[in-house]
């Protein structure tokens, strides 16, 4: 295997860009939320400022090894997910491992970080963390059902489990999965709301109720690393959904537009909705989204 410097550079730069985009989106979201609520809100760069401040903090406390490693788990999963995603179609620079970007692998590696985070949060001994984890995991069982249904339907449609091939199938506007497979996409997008964790599905992190839930005992470098991880992960999730449902992106601008629109979708849904209780959200996903997903599966199976 020839060693390609461009590739190595890609490995390093991709996460950096991802985190930059992620932080920007997070900043934007705060601004947009404020505007919707008729506030002025912080500047867009506020997220950057926050994370820089956290990184530069001199002291940090932990409650044991698992908490120490929790953020590392998280960032590992975020970056690995990103590296296996085809960020931009046919780009060598962003290719990384994406030629092996298997969907099922991605589904699983994405959990890796959440598990590590949950373990770290568990060790802090803060009841709010544990409650948050409990709610988060429960919700996951809820939205995973329509989510996987959508993905399976698409995999069957594309006759591939590889993301690059799935993107290849969606060549041209009309072949996007949203149009090819509207039902599956609908189910997938409803599940996507759960994935993003905005209202009405933000009960695991409810800031007012649980003091942000899992991360409530983290501070300093730990919180900084977690935020970085979260920014990368947010971007990775957006890219994944864009790749699967919206035909990927052939250049960076297209990618930004698509991901941002997708991001706005989650944000706006959240802004106009109150918060579901855990079992309500689970039951929500197990009803209509699951039914739609099942219908999509049936259709795809019927088409052969």
């Amino acid at each position, binding site marked *: 295997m020839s060693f390609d410097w461009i590739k190595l550079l890609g490995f390093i730069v991709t996460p950096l860009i991802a985190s930059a985009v992620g932080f920007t989106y997070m900043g934007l979201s705060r601004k947009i939320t404020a505007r919707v609520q008729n506030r002025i809100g912080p500047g867009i760069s506020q997220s950057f400022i926050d994370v820089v401040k956290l990184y530069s903090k001199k*002291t*940090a406390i932990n409650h044991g090894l698992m908490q120490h490693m929790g953020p590392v788990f998280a960032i590992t999963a975020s*970056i*690995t997910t990103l590296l296996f995603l085809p960020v931009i179609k046919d780009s060598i620079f962003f290719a990384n491992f994406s030629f092996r970007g298997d969907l099922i692998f991605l589904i*699983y590696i994405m959990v890796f970080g959440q598990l590590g985070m949950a373990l770290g949060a568990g060790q802090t001994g803060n009841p709010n963390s544990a409650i948050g984890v409990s709610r988060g995991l429960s919700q996951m069982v809820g939205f995973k059902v329509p989510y996987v249904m959508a993905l399976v339907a698409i995999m*069957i449609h594309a006759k591939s489990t590889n993301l690059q091939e799935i993107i290849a199938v969606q060549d041209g506007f009309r072949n996007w999965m949203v149009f090819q497979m509207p039902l599956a996409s609908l189910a997938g997008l409803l599940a996507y709301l759960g994935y993003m964790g905005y209202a009405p599905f933000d009960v695991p992190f409810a800031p007012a109720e649980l003091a942000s839930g899992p991360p409530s005992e983290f501070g300093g*470098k730990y919180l900084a*690393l977690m935020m970085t991880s979260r920014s990368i992960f947010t971007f990775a999730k957006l890219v994944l959904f864009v790749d699967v449902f919206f035909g990927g992106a052939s250049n960076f601008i297209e990618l930004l537009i698509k991901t941002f629109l997708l991001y706005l979708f989650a944000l706006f849904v959240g802004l106009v909705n109150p918060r579901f209780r855990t079992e309500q959200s689970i039951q929500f996903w197990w009803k209509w989204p699951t039914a739609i997903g*099942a219908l999509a599966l049936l259709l795809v199976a019927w088409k052969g």
Partner: protein
Amino acid sequence: MEQLLNIPAILAIAFAGSILVFVTHLVLPRLRTAVVLLLTLVPAYLVWQLPVDSPMVYFSLGGFDLSWGTNPYSRLFSLLIAGIGVLSTIYSLAFMKNKARLGFFYLAFLATIAAMYGIVFSQDLLSLFFFWEIMTWSSFLLVIYYRFENQQAGIRYFVFSAVGAYALLTAIVYLYSFTGDLSLAATFRVIPQLSTTQLSWITVLFLLGFGVKSALMPMHVWAPDAYRSAPSPFTALFSGVLSKMGVFGMGLVLFKFMGGLEPGHIIREVLAWMGGITALLGTFYAVFQTDAKKLLAYSSIAQLGYIIVGLAIGTPMSVMAAIFLALMHGIFKSMLFMGVGSVFHQTGSLDLNELTGLIRRMPLSFVTVLMGIITVAGVPPLGGFVGKWLLYESLITSNHYFLVIVLFTSSTAAFLYLYRLIFSIFLGQEEREFDHIKEVSWVMWVPMLILAGMTLVTGILPGIFFGPIAEAMQYLGFPQIDWQMSVLFNPWGNQVDMLSVITSIATVFLLGLAFITWKNFRTTRYVTTKDIHTSGEMPTENENLTYAIDFYRPFERAAAPIFKYKVTRMYASFAENAEHLFDLLRHVYTGNAQTYALYVVIFLVILIVFSGWIFGIQI
């Protein structure tokens, strides 16, 4: 000649060993440990050096021609037995130290291992059944080892095993009535000549028999309590290996016997769905357990569901996935039971509501359980992922869309119980009462860590299992299967390269760890788990805020409709009604001498009046 003697030698040593240990315990208790170790290691070594295709050993017993031998398929399972057998025996040496009735314990323990060797080496149905039953009762003896615990568990286990074994026996004798020969080879020859109906019956009976041992729903009700009641070293073996004997048999039946059942046959589909439902419901039940071993027991049931799905689908990839998962399950479930057993050994409790914050007291057990749950969850880069990936891909590529959803839901829900397991035991606030707890002795943690290492190795280089599995599958009648050391690929040509996965994960993880440790190394403080803020207050010393009771109540509420019907209750009411019926029936024995005399006369009259009809006319 040497080779000829090998299998009989293994079985003889193994069985004689169990008795020898019993005697040693009575005569020279000091030597017991040495004898136990010797008598597990020697057969295990002999199994290890058995050739893949050792010549068959023929002999005759009770008027039947029997034979023993090895083939790639049985070798695979014999190595699993040997490996987990040795490790759990070593583990048991420390776990069972100073316990009562050790002679009895090791008698049954070694007999179980020996019987399992017997099962996989059997090349005829009679020896198979013979060893199967020995395995049943020796494991039954271990289930009831703690005498004061609920004996219901033991009897339920035994009754279900008996029903399963008798289904097996029915199938065997039914087959025998066609073949007149019990050897597997003859059976395979005759099977194509049977009619579809006959074949289906035999298959169903066999599957019923093997399904009970592998706790396939709805025949699973014995499993949680039996796993729970057995001593932990044995539970490791029980769930890790013994349940695989059911899988072993199913593989044999589905591919060797029933070659006529093409993929997609109704029996296969039904079995696959039963496996899927087992996986789903087993997981859901596991979520609500408050007893660590019971939780793992339900988890075992669910995992076996996956394996059965893979076997039932019957495409090369799914079978490979199933056997891979079977081996993995042997490794990770015995490891988890050992880890939880260690906790029980040190604290005397398995109650998830009671245990808390043991991570700093028992770090090695924690690592074991951590690796275990990552493997069970199927998260890369450990071995569990490989099996899950293969299984999902095989299901998707063979058009089992809804089954894959079921399995996926199940494995997502698995995170719930896995997190709860590790959180409740090891994480959360530390308690004063557990301050004196120490890590278990090296005798116990070494086997645990060896298994943990195995999960990592199989994750990076799954090929070390693929090789033997591919050979075994060739024995089962599949064509030559391509495999690579660390790349997984599906029939559509998509692949996952475990090496790049591990490279990425390891690099990022190490860098991140280095960063977070190095940065502010001096000013980073460790604080106790009491040093937290909740609503701005710090909990006092004797306050425990760990959120452990009713951990998943919201989920329970959401999933409530699923648990409305309890199959256990159904069986219980069936048994109760049957007993009432029996009770009613025995009232024919009225105790009145005259009634009995009347019976005699009535019987005589009936015989005479209906003699023509009863005996036929042709006297």
